[in-house]
Structure formats: C-alpha cells, structure tokens
C-alpha cells in the first residue's frame, strides 16, 4: 500500500494555496513571466516562475516580527510547511514523534547576495549572516512549528525534495517517526540566475518541455511539503488519506557533473527501482509527471529512459514545469503535490507550449487537461551530480 499522505502545502508561481494551484492546473494557467522582485540586467532575457508575494507580504501573512531574519527561502518554506500541517489537521505537534526533512539549494543566498558588501558595516543586516546556511532555513521552520524530534536538510540539487520525501517514508516505515513533514524550498536568486545563464540552458521564451525546438528552462521559486503519517496514527486519528507513496527509487547516472547520459541510465534505474518497490508493472502507471526541464539534454535523456522502461506503451506524460518554472530543490515536492492532485482530480495536467514532436523519440506529451482514470502516478526528479529520483503515488 505505501506510506499515507495526509496533508499538503504549497506556494508557487501558480498560487499561494493547494486550491489556487489546483485551479491554475485545471485552467492551463501558467505562472511563468517576467522577473519582478530581483534587480538584474538579465530580467529582459529570461522568463521565470516567481511567487507573487513579496517578502513583506509573506512576513505579514506569517505574522512575523518586522525584524525577523528569515530569508525568502525560509519565508516560502514556513508558509508552505504551516499550510501542510493545517491541511493535515495537526494542532499539537508533540502528540506524536514528528520530524521535518527539508530540501534546499539556495538557503539564505537570496539575502547574502543582497547584503554581502554591507555585512561588515551595517548592523541592521548582520542578522542575515547566520541564515545563509542551508540547514538554518530548515531549523527555523522546525522551531516555528515546534518540531523537535528530528530535523535535517537534504541538498542534492533538483532531486532534493524527492529524496526528502523518500527519507521521510523510510523513517516512518522504520518506526523512528510517527509522522514527518517532507519537501523543499528554494527562492530565486541572482546567483542561480547567473549560474544557469552561464551554462546556457536558460530560455528567453516560455519553456517548451519535450518540444523539438525547445531552447532551455525557465527558473522558478516555490516551497511545497507533504505530511506523511504512519498507519497507526492514521487509524487512531481517523485521518483522511489523500494518496499513498507506494514506491520510490534513487540512482546515480555516473556520467557528468551536470549533463545526463545519452541512454538516461540514472533515470532508467530510478524508475525501475520505484516500480519494483511498488510491485507494479510499467503498464500499471497511468500518468508520468516528468522532470521535463525543457533543456535539450534532459528531455532527450529522460525520453530515452522512459522508452527503455515503458517500451511501446508510454503512458500519458507531461511536465508541469511549464506552469511553475524549474523550482530546483523544491521541484520534487511541488510535483509530488501535483501528482496527488492528479489522483484526486482523476485528471492529467497538460504540458504547455508543446508544438512539435522530438524526431529522435516520437513521444508526444499530453497538451490539454485530460480526465482519465488514474490509479498510479509516477514523478521524476533528476539533479545535477547525476542524482536521479523517482516517486510513485497511488490512489487512496
């Protein structure tokens, strides 16, 4: 059956709540556009999936003191983690052994890059020196939510949140925790924007995953968390289960620091492992929420891996990064939420901006909202460093 998912929280370019995100997905309404909150000379040359709340709006929504030292990554993370606990009707954290596993790559970089030159002289901004650390964003969220049993941070690039979800499930199965908040958060930053620009894989247009003429990715920012609970807690508290995490797998592509191998070995192994754990045949997967970043390299490599696993019978698939942009460390959790929404809505979400099939593979993603009986959804997240993860979600 798997590990029960009893709550979700999300904030992304397509909405500040589960309801808003769901509505945008069903209306094919993308949140990718022009960069507003960061001053950079690249603003005209890129498109991003930005969360519309400014830091002061987030501060207000979270009822924080004005002189707090949360960075944007922390603010987004706290917003989504709080929402996930509320969604799961958890009011007393200490009632059960509760942990948090959060993923991030940016950490407090968004503030550090703004104030680095002032740290030595401006006392007002020195509070952000401490919060640069990737682990601090998790610790601050844990402290704010009263989670004391277990807290850790995973940083494995774009598969981080998927790995956080995997670890959470393992801790529950091992009986080490009764429930766990798992997911990730990353804010946009000049550091990342410039970095991806220099790798020349960012598109100046809306990204078109799996399209023959795709030019690259759009960066995004988001935070998303799932609440996983043990069967014992679910039964005792009579919790509503949204879906089950029935399988997961992780493997290393062992090819290059940032590019994926031509035969998608890491992706292939991760998908195989997840299917094996879930005890499913490829034919039982009803929808793949692909990693689909719209870079020439990933979409080709992932397509080959998908064909190696599914053969002639590739199920409906789409990349929702055309809605949110590539949210880096949060992506695995954002797309986990979308996979659960797909199961709840019995609907496959579209792969926006797709026009032409890739000649090398002939694979066509779903391009409109499609109502379909869904029992099992597979979600891919592949990160730099060859870290490939796959999660399988099954209908409750």
């Amino acid at each position, binding site marked *: 059956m798997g590990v029960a998912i009893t709550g979700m929280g999300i904030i992304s370019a397509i909405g500040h709540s589960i309801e808003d995100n769901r509505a945008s997905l069903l209306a094919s309404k993308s949140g990718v556009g022009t960069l507003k909150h960061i001053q950079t000379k690249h603003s005209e040359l890129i498109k991003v999936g930005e969360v519309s709340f400014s830091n002061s709006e987030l501060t207000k929504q979270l009822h924080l003191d004005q002189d707090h030292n949360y960075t944007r990554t922390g603010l987004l993370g706290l917003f989504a983690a709080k929402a996930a606990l509320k969604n799961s009707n958890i009011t007393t954290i200490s009632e059960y052994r509760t942990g948090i596993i959060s993923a991030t790559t940016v950490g407090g970089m968004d503030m550090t890059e703004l104030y680095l030159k002032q740290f030595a002289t401006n006392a007002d901004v020195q509070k952000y020196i401490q919060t640069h650390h990737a682990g601090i964003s998790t610790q601050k969220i844990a402290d704010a939510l009263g989670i004391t049993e277990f807290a850790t941070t995973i940083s494995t690039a774009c598969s981080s949140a998927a790995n956080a979800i995997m670890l959470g499930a393992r801790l529950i199965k091992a009986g080490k925790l009764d429930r766990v908040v798992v997911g990730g958060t990353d804010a946009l930053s000049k550091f990342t924007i*410039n970095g991806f620009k*220099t*790798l020349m894989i960012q598109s100046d247009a809306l990204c078109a995953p799996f399209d023959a003429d795709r030019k690259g990715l759009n960066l995004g920012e988001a935070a998303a968390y799932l609440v996983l609970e043990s069967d014992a807690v679910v039964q005792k508290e009579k919790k509503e289960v949204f879906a089950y995490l029935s399988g997961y797998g992780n493997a290393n592509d062992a090819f290059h620091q940032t590019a994926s191998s031509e035969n998608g*070995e890491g992706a292939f192994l991760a998908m195989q492992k997840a299917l094996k754990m879930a005890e499913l045949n490829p034919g039982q997967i009803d929808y793949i929420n692909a990693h689909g970043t719209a870079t020439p390299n990933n979409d080709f490599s992932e397509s080959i891996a998908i064909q190696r696993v599914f053969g002639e019978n590739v199920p409906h698939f789409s990349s929702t990064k055309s809605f949110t942009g590539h949210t880096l460390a949060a992506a695995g959790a954002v797309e986990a939420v979308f996979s659960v929404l797909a199961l709840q809505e019995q609907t496959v979400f579209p792969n926006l901006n797709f026009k032409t099939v890739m000649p090398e593979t002939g694979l066509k993603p779903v391009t409109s909202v499609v109502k379909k009986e869904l029992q099992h959804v597979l979600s891919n997240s592949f*990160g730099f*460093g060859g870290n490939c993860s796959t999660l399988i979600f099954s209908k409750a």
Partner: protein
Amino acid sequence: MEKTHHISSYCHIKDSRVSLNGNTLFISAIAEFSAFIKSASQHLETKYSKFYKMDNLSKMAFLASDVVLNHAKLPSDKENNIAILLSNRASSLDTDRKYQDSISEADNFFPSPSVFVYTLPNICIGEISIKHQLHSENCFFIFDTFDANHLWLHAESLLKSKKAEKVLCGWVDFDENNYEAFIYLVEENGTIAHSPNEIKRLYKS
C-alpha cells in the same frame, strides 16, 4: 539471524595529511590546501585527468573515497552496488564564494560555468560515481555537526533492505581554511563493528 555489518576501512584527510585505517599514507609540510591535495593525488597515483577541474570540496571527497575504494579492491568486471551517503555543515560554501566573486563587480562581470557547476555539495558524489561507475543510491545531508547516528541508521536501512551491498559514508566539510574529510566503507565483512559508537570513535581518531 540478521547479518551484522562492519566498517572495512576508513580514510581521514585533515591538516595536510591523508591516512587510511589510522596509518599515514601521505603527509605534507605545506599548509595550503591546493598544493597539499595536488601532491597527495600525485603521491597516491590518482591518475585521473579530470581531478584538476574539481573544486576543493570535490577534490577532497574524491581523494578520500578513492583511497577507501581502491583499498577495497572491488571487482572491475561487474557493477558494484555501493550506495553513497555524504554530509557536511558548510554545503558548497567554499565554491559559492568563488562563484560570487565572479559576479560581484559590475564592470568585470563574467560568471564562470565551471565554478558554478560545483556550487552544489552533491556534485562530489557525482565525481566519485563517474570514476568508479557507481549507479547506486546516493544522498547528501547538511548537518550542524557530524551525525554518526543518522548515517548509521540510513546505511543499515539500505543494507538490510538489500538496496545496496556496501555503503560509502562520511563527512566532507570545506569552509575557508578549515577542511576535513572522514570517509568509511560499510559492508558485511570487516574488523570494526558498524555502530554509532564505533563511527564516532573512528571520526575522532
């Protein structure tokens, strides 16, 4: 009866010294990391042309892992199912600073792709996997301090569930002039019991 697991070998890199199972393999009089690690890799005959492109964190993690994995004399004719679990406190901060330098002056603004590539702590796992062709599970954790319990639990879980035959674990931290690497291999056979206390003892040794 459940199989017990053991630590079959471990490597420390700290204070210009590389040691394996407590024995010094190489020691340098030079305090500066770049010069030290270059001599160490030459002395230990790493012979890997891509070594020089790596950032400090990856060079250190790679060398320590190479020492341990070469010592293990793994069969080269089959795929080795060795999972990798590494951790640190500073993430990729050393390289992040270098990268930030390349974008901090408006009139000398040239972000470096080869530096940016290393601004993630888990790239070092990628480097180790590429050289030893390891496709197994891998993860990188950020801890406040070295956490033997967490690594022990995770490694045991992978071995018991047969997700991996061996697990390469450790702590690889690089922050300004402070660096340390502690890498150990967990498998069925070995002379040191795989337990949190033993891991802590070896870490401190």
